[in-house]
C-alpha cells in the first residue's frame, strides 16, 4: 500500500478546525480541543490507567472471541457437513441469532454478576454467528469431488475434517474470524459502557461523568486506534497465511 499524502489532508484540517472552533467556543463539558485531548491521552497513558483498561477490554474481547469463535466454528463444520442436523437446527438458529448481544446483558448480569465472565459471555455470544454462518457455507461448498476422494481413500471422519474440509474452507473461515474480531471489540466496549465496571468503555463512562471531555475523547480516539490496529494485523495475517489459497480460490 503506497502512502498518499492526500489522505491526511482532511483529518489534519478537521483537527485544526476543531482546535480553533473549540477554543473560540470556550470551556465545555462535552467538547475539548485536540491539544487537550492529546494531553489527557498522555496523562492516562502515563499513569497506566489507559493500558490497564486496554488490557481488560482486549482480554475480554479475545477470550470471548476464542470461545464464541470455537463454538461457531464447530457448529458451522457440523451443520455444513451434516445436512439433517442443519435442517434440525436452522429454525432455532434463525430465531436466536437476531437477538442483539446487548439484549442478553440483563440475563447475563443476573446469572454471572459484574466482571470478566459477564463480558466474555456476551462477547462469545456475539462472536458465534459470523464463524457459524460462514463456516457452514464454506464447508457445505467444499468441492464434492474432494469428499469423494476422501471416501475413496477411506479417510476417517476426523482426517476428513482436518485434511480436507478445514483446509478447503480455511480462507473463508479466516474472513469470518476477522469479522468476529471487529464484533468482539465493539461488543466488549458496549458491555463496559452499559454495565461492566472495567475496560475502555468504562473509562469513557467515568471520564464523561467526571466532566472530563478531554479524557473521554482521548479514550474514544484510542479505541479507534486499537480497532484499526487489530483489523490491520488480521488483514496482514490473512494475506501472509492465505496468499496462495486466496489466489486459488479466486482462480477456480
Amino acid at each position, binding site marked *: 500500500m503506497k502512502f498518499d499524502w492526500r489522505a491526511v489532508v482532511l483529518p489534519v484540517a478537521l483537527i485544526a478546525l476543531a482546535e480553533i472552533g473549540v477554543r473560540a467556543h470556550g470551556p465545555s463539558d462535552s467538547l475539548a480541543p485536540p491539544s487537550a485531548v492529546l494531553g489527557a491521552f498522555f496523562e492516562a497513558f502515563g499513569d497506566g490507567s489507559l493500558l490497564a483498561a486496554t488490557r481488560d477490554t482486549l482480554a475480554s474481547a479475545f477470550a470471548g472471541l476464542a470461545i464464541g469463535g470455537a463454538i461457531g466454528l464447530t457448529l458451522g463444520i457440523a451443520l455444513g457437513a451434516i445436512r439433517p442436523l442443519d435442517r434440525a437446527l436452522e429454525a432455532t438458529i434463525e430465531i436466536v441469532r437476531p437477538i442483539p448481544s446487548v439484549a442478553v446483558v440483563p440475563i447475563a448480569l443476573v446469572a454471572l454478576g459484574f466482571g470478566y465472565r459477564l463480558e466474555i459471555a456476551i462477547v462469545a455470544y456475539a462472536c458465534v454467528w459470523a464463524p457459524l454462518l460462514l463456516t457452514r457455507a464454506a464447508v457445505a461448498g467444499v*468441492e464434492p*469431488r474432494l469428499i*469423494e*476422494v476422501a471416501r*475413496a*481413500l477411506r479417510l476417517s471422519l476426523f*482426517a476428513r475434517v482436518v*485434511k480436507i474440509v478445514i483446509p478447503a474452507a*480455511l480462507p473463508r473461515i479466516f474472513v469470518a474470524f476477522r469479522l468476529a474480531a471487529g464484533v468482539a471489540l465493539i461488543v466488549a466496549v458496549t458491555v463496559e459502557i452499559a454495565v461492566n465496571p472495567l475496560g475502555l468503555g468504562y473509562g469513557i463512562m467515568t471520564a464523561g461523568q467526571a466532566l472530563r471531555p478531554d479524557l473521554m475523547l482521548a479514550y474514544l480516539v484510542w479505541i479507534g486506534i486499537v480497532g484499526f490496529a487489530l483489523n490491520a494485523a488480521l488483514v496482514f495475517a490473512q494475506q501472509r497465511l492465505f496468499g496462495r489459497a486466496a489466489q486459488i480460490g479466486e482462480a*477456480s
Partner: protein
Amino acid sequence: MSHDALIRFSAVDLAFAGKLVLSKLSLAIARGEIVCIVGPSGCGKTTALRVATGLLTPTAGEVAFSGAPLKGPRRDVAIVFQDYGKALLPWRNAAGNVSLALEAAATPRAGRAQRISALLAKVGLPDHADKYPSQMSGGMQQRLQIARCLAQEPIALMMDEPFGALDAMTRQDLQDELLKIAGASGTTVFFVTHDLEEAIYLGDRVIGLLPHPGRIGIELKIDLPRPRDQVATREAPEFLRLRRELYDFIKGAER
C-alpha cells in the same frame, strides 16, 4: 476366466429417484484384466464404474469383490476421476497430494518421502514434487492423480474417462504409460471412455452399453497382441474391424 472374477456384477439395478439408470447388469472382470466400457452418453457407464467402486450401492442385485459383497469404497481399489483439477488438493503440492493416500493408509512416516519420489518418478513427474496443482498442466495434474492412486497400491484401478480432457499427444502417452504400469503390476483396470479407439487400444475386452436404461449391448474380446503400439496396433486389420463393429454398435445405440 469367470471362475476367478475380481469384480462381479450380478443382475445389478441402479435407480436415481425412481428412474432406472442401470438394468440387470451382469458382468465379471477377471484379475489383471483390462475392461473398457463404452457407450453413448446417458448409458450409465460412469454410474456402472461408481457402482463397481462402492461409491454407489445398487438398488437391486449384488456387486462382489474378490468373492465377497462390496460394501463401500476400498483402499485397494483406486479411482481416477476425469476432473483431475477438482480431485487434487489445491493447497498441497504434488508430494503432499500423493502423501494423502499414504496418510490414509497410515503408512509409517519414515518411508513416505522415498515412496512419494518413486511414485512421482513412475508417472513422469520426478522434478515436480514441490509444484502445486495450479502450476501444472492438465496432463501433469492427471499424472499426479494417478500417482496418488498408485500410492494406494491398488489391485484394481477404476478410471472414469481419465484422458478425455487431454490433448491427443498427452492422451497417447498416458495410455501407453497406463498399459506399462498395469502390465508390470498385474493391476485390474476398469476403464470408462467415450473414445472407441482408446477402448480397443487399451482393453482385453470392450463392453458397449445401451442407454435408457443402461444395459450391456455388445461385448468384444480384443485379441490384439501386447505390447500395443500407437501406430502398428491402430493400423492392424483386426483393430480396424473391431473399430467398425463398435462404431456400428454405437450408431445403432444412439438411434
